[in-house]
């Protein structure tokens, strides 16, 4: 992603510091499963297994939390997902 200065976030994310905000990706009938998995690997830097697990959760449960952390960061992630054509939203984690 040359369009967003997010490269540095990959490392932080794999540590997956839980935060009060979440980025949620929603199922849609159009995006290919392989493509969604690819996006999770490429953008978040998730290992194949984790990316596939998340993709299947989106597919079967209708949505999945793909990242947690500060609100601004979750908004950047949502924007990046929209860049890929995935539908993502931001929400406050249930306390």
């Amino acid at each position, binding site marked *: *992603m*040359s*369009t967003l200065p997010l490269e540095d976030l990959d490392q932080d994310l794999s540590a997956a510091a839980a935060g009060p905000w979440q980025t949620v990706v929603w199922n*849609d*009938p*159009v*995006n*290919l499963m*392989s*493509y969604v998995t*690819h996006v999770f*690997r*490429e953008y978040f830097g998730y290992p*194949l297994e984790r990316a596939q697990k998340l993709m299947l959760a989106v597919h079967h449960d209708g949505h999945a939390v793909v990242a947690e952390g500060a609100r601004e960061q979750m*908004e950047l992630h*949502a*924007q990046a997902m*929209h*860049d*890929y*054509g995935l*539908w*993502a*939203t*931001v*929400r406050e984690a249930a306390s």
Partner: protein
Amino acid sequence: MTPLELELSAIEAANLTDLVEQFAELVADSTDAGTIDDPAVARLVPDAYLDDPDAAGEFRRLTQRDLLRRRSGDAGVVLATLLRDGEPVTPATLEPGQERDRIVVTLDAEQLRAWLRTLAAVRLVLASRLGVVDEDDHADDDSRFGVYDWLGYRLETLVRAADRDL
């Protein structure tokens, strides 16, 4: 990564050029509009907040135009790399008998990402036009589904190629 070589027939290249040009036009027309009425374009810039219209509106105000500009940029990369002897292949410039000519598109990593995002976005627009709301929605007698399926097949191939470098 090693540059990826994507092989297409001339007719595929011409049809894809036509589709991506239409897509780029649609996106460009919507970019300066504050509100988007076309559901196909709206799908490219979805609400980022489900239950908070104010936050969704603010997010949209800050991001929508840039998002659509990036779609135009990506589409531009596709059109700039989808060439035959350095020239675009369009249905109008394709001469009879050339349909099956082989065209090789060479893509570096960044160009490949632009292709992936564009094919995914064009499929979203087509799906919206076709009224796809369920994965099983498919009218075999509608030729537009042929284009939709073909894009899916091409996207799948490119995803596999891109995965090799992850």
